[in-house]
């Protein structure tokens, strides 16, 4: 565990209905661990990129509930935290290889994500994003077929699904963003330097010669 210096100040917080007293320098997850509460599910990278530890937070004397990540949020006096369950996974299924050409992307998209057109611009998705992505704008761009631009907005998306939880029209914006990024790569990323090298390899122009054991340079600190 992280080398945490002597805890100087304790604060009372409520996590999933249980009140605990934890050091103020701790994240929500560390606070649970430090107080003897087992927490494995909903914990992943501990660096804010895996999206596992999504939480709803209400701070003392504030009515607003915010959506955050438990590994990135420090406990504060009077804070209420809930780990909400993940929404069920999407039922749709698609293969990039089923989309015949780039003209067909929009058709496929409308088939897979018809609900995007129902967006009522309530802004709930954008407000819920712990990464500050303008999710709503992404939905508008995707509805217009601007997938490259949509994908670009979602570069920091960690698939925490909070925007989906927030959407009253059952849009799952994180998958719209991911679809947009994937079709952009699949249809538009054709780098000449890579293609040229693949061709050279295919023609057998580039090989690798393994050094013979006698030609080995001096071994450095050899061991098993």
């Amino acid at each position: 565990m992280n080398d945490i210096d002597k805890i100087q100040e304790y604060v009372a917080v409520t996590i999933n209905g249980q009140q605990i007293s934890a050091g103020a320098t701790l994240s929500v997850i560390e606070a649970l661990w430090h107080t003897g509460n087992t927490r494995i599910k909903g914990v992943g990278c501990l660096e804010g990129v895996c999206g596992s530890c999504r939480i709803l937070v209400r701070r003392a004397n504030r009515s607003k509930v915010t959506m955050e990540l438990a590994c990135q949020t420090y406990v504060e006096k009077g804070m209420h935290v809930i780990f909400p369950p993940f929404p069920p996974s999407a039922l749709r299924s698609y293969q990039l290889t089923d989309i015949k050409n780039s003209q067909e992307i929009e058709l496929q998209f409308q088939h897979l994500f018809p609900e995007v057109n129902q967006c009522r611009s309530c802004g709930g998705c954008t407000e819920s994003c712990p990464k500050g992505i303008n999710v709503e704008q992404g939905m508008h761009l995707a509805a217009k077929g601007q997938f490259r631009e949509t994908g670009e907005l979602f570069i920091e998306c960690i698939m925490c699904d909070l925007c989906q939880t927030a959407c009253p029209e059952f849009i799952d914006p994180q998958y719209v963003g991911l679809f947009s990024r994937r079709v952009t790569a699949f249809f538009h990323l054709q780098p000449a330097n890579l293609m040229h090298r693949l061709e050279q390899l295919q023609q057998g122009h580039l090989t690798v010669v393994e050094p013979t054991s006698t030609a080995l340079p001096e071994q450095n600190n050899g061991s098993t």
Partner: protein
Amino acid sequence: MMSNENLYATALRRYQPNTNRSAPGDEMAPNELLNNFHPDYDQNAMVALQTGSNQGDLCHRQLAAWLQSDTRIKEADLINAPVIETDVLVIGGGGAGCAAALTASATNAQVCLATKLRLGDSNTIMAEGGIQAAIEKNDTPQMHFDDTYKAGHYQGKTALIKQLVLDGPDVIRWLIQQGMQFDTNASGDLLTRRAGGTSADRVLYCRDYTGLEMMRALREATLNSTVARHDYSPVVELLSNKQGHCTGAVLASLEKDNYTLVKAHAVILATGGIGRMHLNAFPTSNHLGATGDGLVLAYRLGAKLQNLNSFQYHPTGLAWPHNLSGTLITEAVRSAGAQLLNAQGERFIDELKPRDLVAAAIIRECIEGRGIRVSEHSAGVWLDTPTLERQTPGILNQRFPKLVALGKRSQIDPHHTPLLIYPTLHYQNGGVSINKNGETTIPGLYCAGETSGGIHGKNRIMGNALLEIISFGRRAGLHAAQRRVKQKHQKISISHLIKFRNDLTKASLPMALKGPMLFPDYTGFK
């Protein structure tokens, strides 16, 4: 005595950005630096294994305890356990596991993928630096081979390295086909950057989110495939037939308190690294599930492991604030030109030397009193991001958004304030021995990614881990899928444990520890 905050603030006041610093002075010979200051070279941390295929080999003391630990299950636990049949069982839901599962299922094999946490919860998702592939005009697979072999102190298996570097460009092609983006220049060429200890610009990337971008695409591809998933299902034991071949595995459920037996023609271990063992009490950059489970399972079945005394301490883990210690700062920041400074504001090593040397040099500065001390027990050195920003205005926001976000969280603005860093336990260089098809020494058992060993020798260069997981994940997946046409399902049992437990007893080893670890003890998991 000054409080820690004061120590840090005092150190910070002495720092000045400077675009014209002199080169590091006389450098210590690499051997001397490693022998004296790298944690791998501390002989007190190593013991000889007393049982198993690697009996007599040196192994890190903490890892040895787990390799020689007792099983978590009893025969009676399995009596009424349901049995599932599949062609290929993949254990692990990171990049290697997904690449293996996707490749196997593309050949119409039936594939099960079991993950301890959620699909995608892995070290892959955290990788920032990028992925190596020799695609530039002035670069060749041979140069990639030479760099990898040399950086690993000539301890890597040359046949594996050769396969790795030749696979590089096709791995990138495959990833693009899965829907992964890379950064390109105006004319659409892939951008490349230089890794420490290498001779050409060879690291491809997607900002500093390369692993996240890769994992998002692979996870989505896997979710949209025929692969059957078992989330929150750690594997607690492998299954074997009379000949000791691998024929399946025992899945535990974190949601229901029960076990499931999976019968498979082939099992692919892709369980990742060991950072959460916190070797030598180091902080780690690894995700919560990186507890070396695959090594323990494979060793009990008799598989040969290698380089068990070699780990990577990434030079730039955050050392301040303390509660973020161990968080990784990508090598790409040094690759872009950021320098390392000691308390005197001096450089002390060429920042783009291989990782083991840079880490050892940082530890040397701190041990010898030239580090920036922030508490009685901890010190670090500066990563000079403000000077980098002065040299190339805008570079931090453009190329390192994740770093800037980390700064916001730690209330340190890297545009104006240098980051205090210290090495963090990052990667397991060794692992289960494999051949170029990902086969271990046990028939039916495959291995890919960080759990496997042999490619990186005693030190890994930036970008080779992401290449390895896809290159060897695909290889293992393809080869493992072919086993289904050759044979019928075999008997499954845990009889290999009888011999293993006998060996433990004969060697008078304590049987109190039950492995694999699954989760570090501070999570409260039993």
